[in-house]
Each structure stands twice: as structure tokens, then as C-alpha cells.
């Protein structure tokens, strides 16, 4: 990999230990992915925030760099483990809370915008076409590449952090080109967001770094997000290109049979004890739509709704949060279904959700059963 004189100097430690480490991460990542050089990026989005994912080692590392490290570009970050406003309702142990707060403080100390959201593309302005960014959250990287005309690889927590500190990323893979060798043909009719989530999950399994996708009907935001979330969960693929692709492209159908395979893999329970909505977190459109769907109805069991803090505040002003709380929803900011410590298998056997991404982590990390339903089915069957 070619480095400029300034980059070489940073790698030698002439600009301090933090810069040396950050460039070491970029060079190691770049060499591993056959990058030819480093290029500037304008926005980094970090993962590795929830204490459940990074543990003591992550907490200690962030604390150790927080004194000297500072971000050089706009930097936002993923959800953490709880909503500080209502954490006392959830019986979390003191150790989790104090370690999570330490992680939060470290990120704030290095200058990260405390967005605690996995949908940066819905709560921040999108830069101009073809801008290079560095997103470590998989659904956000896929959304950025596929719908927002931005360029990013599916970054690791570490490469995104190094990019935040240096303002640079290795020039490789999707930053340079995308020529998928595979096209997926959507063959399932009357799709819901659940269908699109399963389609994404399937695409992530069969795709390499990008895939063509055809046969899609007009999709709403919820469905687009579900597809990105599903894909990010199952593989390394990080971009949809819409259309059939070249004629020599291998074609694979996503039909009822393939859909059933994904459903059977992730749907492990007949019914849930609680409901979660959000993974990815809900945007304002989805909150507004949910409030409308719940008019005159209320949930028969607990329903957790995950949304970014900025959206929650807007929703409060418009009156949606009142509507949702009246219908029995618990609205949570700063956290999400994925890897949440708020759902514990000691108290909960199974969770009903419309999120494929959420389902995967509930099943594999929280160890609870999962009952998949579309939002329409959830409202029909779980409210009165």
C-alpha cells in the first residue's frame, strides 16, 4: 500500500501514539483487503458501543484512548445497552450500568456525537453523491451504499474508529467498484417488511460484496430498512444494485421455498411473551404510521419500541409518543433490540418481532425464542 509522507510519519509514531495506532489499523486493514492507498472520508459511524458486545476489554481500551484521541471528521455511533431515562425500570446490574456509562463517556470525550442510533441515514443530512464515508453498522453501510449514493465498505468497529481519528480509509472493494457476479430475482408476491427482511438475509448469505436484485415492487422505508438489516446480519455483502445486472451474471431466485428456509431458521416459537419493534430503530415515518395503526387499540402484552432520541423528541412534540404510550408501548431511545440486555431469558421465553435482524440476535445472543410476524399481523393479533 502506498502511503504519503505524512501518513508514513504518523505510522512511525511522529504524531503521537494514538495516530500511530490509528494508522496501524488502517494499514493492517488496507493490506488485508488489497487497498492501494488511503483516501479521505467525511463521516464515520462507529459500532462497538453496547457493553454486551465489547465487554471489559473494549471498555478498558476506550477508556485508555479517551484522554488523547480526538475525532477528525463528523462521527456518529451505534446504540448502547439501555435508555438512560428509564434504565431503573429494567433491573440491570450495577456493573453493566457503570461499564456502559464509562463507554458512553469515553466516546463523548473523543468528540463523537452521542447519537446512539443504527439509522444515521434517517437522522442526519446525507452528504452529496459519491461521498466516501466509513460506516461500521452493517444495515447503515448497506443503506448508505444502496439508497443514499454514498460509498463505504462494511467497516469493522476498529477501522471505523481509526477512520474517525484520521479522516481516512483504505481504498478498496466497494469504495472503488461494484461489479456483482450474482443477481437475485425476487419471486415472492405480496411482500411485507418481513418478506423483505428475509430476502435481505438470503442475499447476505449468497452474495459476496454486492448483489444485483430485481423484481422488487415499490418499497416503503420500513421495507427498505428491513432488507438492509436482514442482509447485514447474514454475511459480508454490503450493497444492493437494483436491476438484472449483466447477462453473464449468475441468476438465483428468491421464491417461496427459499423464504421458508429463512423463516424456519429464525422463527423458533409459536408466540411471544413480549413484542419488540425496531432493529433497525424506527424512524419518524414508522412511528407516525404505528400511531395511526394503533388508533383505538391497545396491546395485550408488553411492546418495546426502539427509536433514536432525536426521533423520540420530535414524536413527543407531534403527539405520537402519547398515542403509543396510551396503546401500551414502552418507547426506548439510545438502544435497540440487537444485543439488548433488557430482554433476559430468565424472564422471557420468546419474543414476537417483525425484524429479521432482531430475530437473529435474539435467538443467537439473548438465547430466547423468536416468533416472526409482520407489523400488520402484530397489530391485528396482539392488540384489541
Amino acid at each position, binding site marked *: 500500500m502506498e502511503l504519503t509522507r505524512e501518513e508514513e510519519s504518523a505510522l512511525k509514531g511522529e504524531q503521537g501514539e494514538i495516530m500511530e*495506532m490509528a494508522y*496501524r*489499523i488502517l*494499514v*493492517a*486493514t488496507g*493490506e*488485508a*483487503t488489497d487497498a492501494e492507498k488511503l483516501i479521505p472520508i467525511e463521516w464515520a459511524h462507529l459500532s*462497538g458501543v453496547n457493553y454486551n*458486545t*465489547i*465487554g*471489559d*476489554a*473494549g471498555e*478498558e*481500551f476506550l477508556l485508555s484512548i479517551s484522554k488523547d484521541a480526538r475525532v477528525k471528521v463528523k462521527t456518529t455511533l451505534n446504540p448502547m445497552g439501555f435508555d438512560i431515562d428509564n434504565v431503573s425500570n429494567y433491573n440491570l446490574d450495577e456493573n453493566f450500568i457503570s461499564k456502559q456509562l464509562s463507554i458512553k463517556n469515553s466516546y463523548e470525550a473523543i468528540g463523537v456525537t452521542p447519537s446512539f442510533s443504527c439509522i444515521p441515514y434517517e437522522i442526519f443530512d446525507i452528504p452529496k453523491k459519491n461521498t466516501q464515508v466509513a460506516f461500521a453498522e452493517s444495515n447503515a453501510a448497506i443503506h448508505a451504499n444502496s439508497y443514499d449514493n454514498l460509498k463505504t465498505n462494511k467497516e*469493522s*468497529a*476498529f*477501522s471505523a474508529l481509526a477512520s474517525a481519528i484520521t479522516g481516512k480509509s483504505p481504498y478498496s472493494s466497494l469504495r472503488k467498484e461494484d461489479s456483482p457476479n450474482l443477481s437475485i430475482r425476487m419471486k415472492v408476491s405480496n411482500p411485507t417488511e418481513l418478506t423483505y427482511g428475509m430476502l435481505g438475509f438470503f442475499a447476505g448469505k449468497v452474495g459476496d460484496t454486492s448483489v444485483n436484485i430485481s423484481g422488487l415492487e415499490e418499497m416503503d422505508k420500513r421495507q427498505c430498512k428491513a432488507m438492509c438489516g436482514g442482509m447485514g446480519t447474514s454475511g459480508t455483502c454490503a450493497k444492493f444494485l437494483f436491476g438484472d445486472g449483466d447477462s453473464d451474471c449468475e441468476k438465483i431466485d428468491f421464491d417461496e421455498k427459499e423464504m421458508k428456509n429463512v423463516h424456519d431458521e429464525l422463527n423458533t416459537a409459536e408466540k411471544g411473551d413480549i413484542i419488540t419493534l425496531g432493529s433497525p430503530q424506527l424512524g419518524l415515518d414508522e412511528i407516525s404510521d404505528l400511531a395511526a395503526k394503533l388508533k383505538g387499540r391497545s396491546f395485550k402484552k408488553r411492546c418495546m419500541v426502539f427509536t433514536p432520541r432525536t426521533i423520540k423528541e420530535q414524536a413527543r412534540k407531534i403527539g405520537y409518543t402519547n398515542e403509543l404510550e396510551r396503546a401500551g408501548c414502552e418507547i426506548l431511545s439510545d438502544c435497540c433490540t440487537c444485543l439488548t440486555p433488557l430482554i433476559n431469558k430468565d424472564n422471557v421465553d420468546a419474543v414476537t418481532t417483525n425484524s429479521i435482524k432482531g430475530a437473529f440476535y435474539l435467538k443467537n445472543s439473548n438465547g430466547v425464542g423468536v416468533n416472526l410476524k409482520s407489523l400488520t399481523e402484530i397489530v391485528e393479533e396482539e392488540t384489541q
Partner: protein
Amino acid sequence: MNKILVQGNIEGVVLKSENPINFLGTVDKKTGIISDKNHDLFGKSIANSILVFPSGVGSSVGAYTIYSIKSNNAAPLAMICKKADLTVATGCALANIPVLIISNNEFDSLVNGMKIKINTKSTSPISIL
């Protein structure tokens, strides 16, 4: 093709495995001992070795484990793999542990107990002592 992921200059004794290593969950953070019963290094510590293995596998959070074992003075002196993976690359970058990627033939020529010198600035970065 050979690659240098993290630079360095060090001498040590080869500890070789034919199995990939999942750093998250199968390497003890305090001692560097491999706890996976199905692994060919089960019960052995990777501390202060030149660890030769095919590649890292598993969650990228395993990079923090590599950082931890280094903080606890239980990390290898260097790692040599056949295949580059981002967990080993970023973990060793965090912890400043040299990492080289070598060919299958070179991999086969390294055996347990061999004393070697790594100098990533040299034209032949690995030499047998």
C-alpha cells in the same frame, strides 16, 4: 502472495497450529491459554510465542481479546498466518503485534520449536536461526 499487515522486528520460538483460532471466547485473556477442547493447542498458552496458524475466525470483537492479552503480557510476540482476516489484522494493529501472511509452502516449512527472526523491513522478513 506475502503481505505484512503489522510491522515489527522480533526473535522467538514458533508455536504452530493447523487450526484457525477464534480469539473471542477460546483464548484466556489473562494467560493466553487456549480453552477450546477441540483445538490442537488446547491447554497451551500462546504467550510470548511466534504464533503460526492458518487464520483467525469468528467475531471481529475478538480483536479486543488480542488487545487484552497484550495488556496482560500474555500475547504472542508475532503472528504468522496463511490467510489475512480482519480480526487478527485489527487486533494486532491495536496491540502492536507484528503480523505476516505467508504462502502455503512457507507455512509448511515452519515447525513447532523452531527459533526464527522476523524483520518486516527486510527483503526476506522471516529467517530461521
